[in-house]
């Protein structure tokens, strides 16, 4: 690990200001992904701003009947919150399907959104990777690509976003709240928060330098049957090959978001609109323009069948 200086921030604004004026600075909260990457020297911050003391660890009702989740709410606490379990079950289910008990106790809401990919070539510093070293090439294209994305990819990167939580938040139309170094605040719809790789796969979100996530808000509950189906190589503690977050109403309408298939949580409102026409119609829209490799072409039928399982469960 490269050496770094360290400070404990006392307010969100102070943290954002420190991050924007200090070259090479990064925020640290749970640290479960950042420290992993720092040990491998994939991340090399020269200064860490510890935001754990910022008191952003509350889950509170919003004035419009939704929930405001502080950036530092731990994954365990978010999954266990009775309001989330009752009104946003897809979110509890997604969180509980991810990581391990130890990691969920440390990992935060904001940190979960900012996770880096688990592409093995991103992790292997001996291999080219456009995400780790822009312009060096993509080893996954033409390499071992079983885990990789099948939709929304580019010639520069076929990595997936590893989060389960973010997939549920996409289905719930969450909003990411931030504060910038000047004190200005922003509300970013989660649909616009994560980016597709394009020619700049190293730029993963629409956050500005120094911008700090303060909360994620959920709109008022939409009801319906909530489920999160995750297919993985082990029964527990593994990243998704394919996951399906589903919210299905009694009349058959609903929302579908997928994990494990793209560089961001994958939801298309046009696919949601096809729900009354059945699984095939939804899958056809979700994967219109898909580009698979020999290794990961199985994800298309797997996603369709997982979606079928989710819709069958929703019918009861």
């Amino acid at each position, binding site marked *: *690990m490269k*050496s*770094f*200086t*360290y*400070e*404990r921030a006392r307010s969100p604004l102070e943290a954002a200001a420190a991050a924007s004026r200090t070259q090479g600075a990064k925020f*640290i909260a*749970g*640290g*479960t992904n950042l*420290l*992993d990457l720092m*040990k491998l020297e994939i991340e090399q911050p020269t*200064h*860490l701003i*510890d935001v*754990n003391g910022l008191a952003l660890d509350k889950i509170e009702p919003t004035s419009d009947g939704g929930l405001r989740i502080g950036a530092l709410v731990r994954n*365990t606490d978010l*999954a*266990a919150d009775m309001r989330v*379990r*009752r009104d946003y*079950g897809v979110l*509890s*289910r997604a969180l*509980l*399907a991810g*990581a*391990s*008990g*130890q*990691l969920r*106790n*440390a990992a935060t809401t904001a940190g979960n959104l900012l996770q880096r990919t688990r592409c093995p070539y991103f992790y292997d510093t001996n291999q080219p990777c456009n995400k780790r070293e822009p312009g060096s090439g993509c080893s996954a294209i033409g390499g071992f690509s079983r885990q990789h994305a099948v939709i929304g990819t580019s010639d520069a990167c076929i990595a997936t976003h590893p989060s389960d939580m973010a997939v549920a938040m996409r289905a719930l139309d969450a909003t990411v709240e931030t504060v910038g170094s000047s004190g200005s605040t922003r509300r970013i719809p989660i649909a616009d928060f994560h980016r597709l790789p394009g020619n700049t796969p190293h730029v993963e979100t629409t956050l500005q330098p120094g911008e700090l996530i303060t909360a994620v808000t959920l709109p008022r509950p939409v009801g319906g049957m909530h489920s999160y189906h995750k297919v993985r190589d*082990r*029964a*527990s*503690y593994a990243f998704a090959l394919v996951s399906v977050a589903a919210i299905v109403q009694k009349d058959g309408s609903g929302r579908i978001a997928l994990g494990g298939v793209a560089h961001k949580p994958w939801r298309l409102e046009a696919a949601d609109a096809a729900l009354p026409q059945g699984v095939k119609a939804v899958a056809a829209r979700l994967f219109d323009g898909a580009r698979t490799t020999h290794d990961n072409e199985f994800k298309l039928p797997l996603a369709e069948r997982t979606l079928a399982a989710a819709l069958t469960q929703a019918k009861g």
Partner: protein
Amino acid sequence: MNKHTREPSTQNRGNTIAISRRELLAVSAASATAAALPHAVVAQPSASGASTPGSAIPTAKVSLQVNGAGHALELDTRTTLLDALREHLRLTGPKKGCDHGQCGACTVIVDGRRINSCLSLAVMNEGRNVTTIEGLGKPGSLHPMQAAFVKHDGYQCGYCTPGQICSAVAMLGEIQAGIPSHASADLAVPPRLTAVEFRERMSGNICRCGAYSNIVDAIVEVSGAKA
């Protein structure tokens, strides 16, 4: 590799005369490191505990309560909680397995919650209460979970065992606190004490010897569940 500025810890060892082989090796290593790292490289921390930019190896101050005893340390900022416990406080119960949060051998309990101590910086744990396997029980006064692991043969090589036991103790606390899991069928009701729940909740602790069924038996006994 990390280069820590090591100093033999005296906090826990004032009344110990016998020096084990492990301690002798550790002290020797500390002397060698100290010789290679002159005092001048240790930066003076500011009053806030923050490290000083511009110094050769940034350090920071941190206070930890470990197994009931207070420790004030000044550490290379890179020092993980695991390394602080093992290398500075000489608590070698928490094990370094993968050092990347994948195996659970480093599991300790911080403020009542189990975490991977390899994925937390020591300085991030200012003022926190840390319990390691050494703090749960000792020979002659074992924690019920330790006794159950012995009774049910919940290990072979034993390397993952301290992490397994710390994890299991905190895991039962999580069920008691009503925290659901992926194995909980109904999110609206409190989770149940079942072997299926225990298996899912213990998935962050890997045992390469494959003692899982005996580990579950030990946990079932302590929990009072009907397997």
